[in-house]
């Protein structure tokens, strides 16, 4: 394993709804960051990104985002990715609402 490689998750937006989603180890797209596959190897990351990008009818704009392990699963490291796990801060809209209903 490459020690200098920062762990990643594959993330994208759903084509139809635009929702932020994460690629899981069992090839689902989850709304929940904790359920993402935490990828710790650069070559594997590129493979998973290609796999995601090929799903043209499911997601848009797949990319690799930095993440770190946490008690409940992967967590984002940058504030932009943290906001993407929730939704806007001015209203209880987006995933923060969808996931509690």
């Amino acid at each position, binding site marked *: 394993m490459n020690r200098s490689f920062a762990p990643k998750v594959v993330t994208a937006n759903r084509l139809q709804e635009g929702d932020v989603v994460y690629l899981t180890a069992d090839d689902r797209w989850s709304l929940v960051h904790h359920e993402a596959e935490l990828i710790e190897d650069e070559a594997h990351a590129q493979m998973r990104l290609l796999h995601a990008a090929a799903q043209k009818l499911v997601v848009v704009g797949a990319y690799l985002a930095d993440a770190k392990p946490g008690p409940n699963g992967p967590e984002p*490291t*940058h*504030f*932009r990715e943290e*906001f993407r796990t929730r939704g*806007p*801060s*001015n*209203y209880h809209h987006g995933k923060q609402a969808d996931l509690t209903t």
Partner: protein
Amino acid sequence: MTKAHDIGLRMVRNAGGEPGFEVIVGGGLGRTPMIGTTVRDFLPVADLLPYVEAVLSVYNTLGRRDNKYKARIKITVHETGKAEISRMIEDRFAELRPLFGGGDQAVLADIRTAFAPPAFRDAPVAAHDAFYRADPVFRSWADTNLAAHRNAQYAIVTISLKAHGQTPGDATSDQMRIIADLAERYGHSDLRISHEQNVILPHVHKSDLPVLHAALVKAGLGTANVGLLSDIIACPGMDYCALATARSIPVAQELATHFEALKLEHDIGPLKIKISGCINACGHHHVGHIGILGLDRAGVENYQITLGGDGTETAVIGEKTGPGFAYDEIVPAIERILRAYLALRTDPGETFLQAYRRVGLGPFKTALYGEIGQKDAA
């Protein structure tokens, strides 16, 4: 506002009293803020389309397509120079002008009929004047949210979409329907959206103002803050925008609620705070009296302050104060600036912008960073 656009058209009169446009080209905010260059002091109104087409045509040929950060016409004007670009525009204009052949003027005459003034009502306003004297809540709203109409019996009403703590510029569907109803009932069915993210009823008879105000208050639209601190303009920022580098909306919300709690905004008086969540400057921070720019500094939201900007016909790009502030520090930082202003203004009539122009950045830098910080930053 005409000085910060790709083309600004500012109506003026010539020595003979005829209307025309001062044509200002190459203004803009964003990554490289620039005040526009006047390429024509007076353009007869009939020449508008061929002249604008000439500007577009020159830009289309000359504008840089190799680098999107240098592609706006402001860079073209800057790199080409005022004299040369004016000459190119005038040459192209001379070619284009005969081709229009008056067709555009026929269209314009037709369009004009659609913008005929409404049938203004003639009715007494004495009851309004008495109500204004008697009701302090109405008076407070009238003093901030009304502007002078050309018909002395009428007023221009600005409906604030900046209730303290709300998202600047947002309206619920219920509020939109209420505004539509009120425009029909009291506003000659005319509505405007301002670039300051408020809604305007441009023609309201003064006798209707008290009942209109009551209806607005009931709908949560009666906030009396137009032109004051909490009338903040803010881009969507990182709560929505994929390009943003930091959030804007919660900064606007917290500034408004903080100063509302301090009951200071009426004392502070006219103030334009403008917040952008990235250097593209959709929140026009460069021309805010206080501008706030949200950036990503090493993975943390950081807010840079500019002071003294002005978006009117006396346009000025604000000056950076120095190092930025973290999300939790930005509201206290703005409070330090405004406390310094309150302490140094000559009298309550001296606005923040006037005081800034008198004393410059120095005292505000001291308020922000302390004496040592000022030396470091100097």
